[in-house]
């Protein structure tokens, strides 16, 4: 599936897959060219985490990133996007060095999402599997942008409804 080129000077980008495994589950899989302990470090140290979690192209600024990575510890990420800020927060449920992280996302109104990340090292490379379990199908659908994450589209829809209401069919 992924290309294996051993050149260190220009490491090939591995392929990221996303699968909706059930009504409530979403799974992201990706191999990272490095040992699990380093990949785990990048997921658990705030100063490293903030360097990759928010892709530059998304127009978001990570204002703060606090991570208390231990069972029962919390995290809080604050982003700014144009004029507004968004917060994401939750609690770490499991922290098994170099192999497994489980945390909750508690910012949504419909119950919490549980994210499980596993790190499997195979010959110096690490298979990372990110598993999101949403509280309900509705919560996943809402997160999925079919409705909730597309405010512009909804605004357009509102306008459309107004115009449909006011025009008679030809």
């Amino acid at each position, binding site marked *: 599936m992924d290309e294996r080129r051993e050149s260190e000077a220009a490491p090939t980008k591995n392929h*990221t897959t996303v699968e909706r495994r059930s009504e409530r589950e979403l799974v992201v899989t990706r191999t990272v060219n490095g040992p699990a302990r*380093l990949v785990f470090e990048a997921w658990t140290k705030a100063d490293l985490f903030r360097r*990759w979690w928010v892709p530059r192209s998304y127009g978001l600024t990570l204002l703060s990133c606090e991570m208390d990575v231990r069972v029962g510890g919390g995290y809080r990420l604050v982003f700014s996007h144009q004029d507004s800020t968004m917060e994401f927060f939750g609690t770490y449920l499991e922290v098994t060095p170099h192999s497994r992280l489980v945390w909750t996302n508690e910012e949504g109104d419909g119950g919490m999402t549980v994210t499980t990340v596993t790190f499997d090292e195979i010959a110096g490379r690490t298979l*990372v599997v990110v598993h999101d379990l949403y509280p309900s199908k509705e919560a996943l659908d*809402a997160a999925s*942008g079919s409705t909730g994450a597309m405010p512009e589209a909804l605004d357009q829809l509102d306008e459309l409804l107004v115009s449909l209401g006011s025009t008679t069919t030809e």
Partner: protein
Amino acid sequence: MVQCVQANFDASFGALSDATRRGVLEQLGRADASITALAQRFHMTLTGMKKHVGVLEQAGLVTTEKVGRVRTCRLGLRGLQEEAEWIERYRQLWSARFDELDKVVEKLKRKERVDGRKKRK
């Protein structure tokens, strides 16, 4: 969220309330067509057909794509297509994240090698 879903349904019903628009959907069910062809088929002006297609498009029932000077319309499989599109957007987000993570891990690896060399000295 419930209101949003409701709004979607309303938009679909609104779009379907017109005989011409229902005809356009029927036509597109048989084959993709340009706006010009649809206008001719339904004896309408180009502007009139553009409006109808716009309503159908906003309701997610039709998608259009402009290639050169021709805008082609086809049926939009809203549910499936939205999910597929969203999954692709989500994949792109994670792909971009992991590409950045690669760089961080690459740096950590390099640092380890340098530190290891220093220790050996």
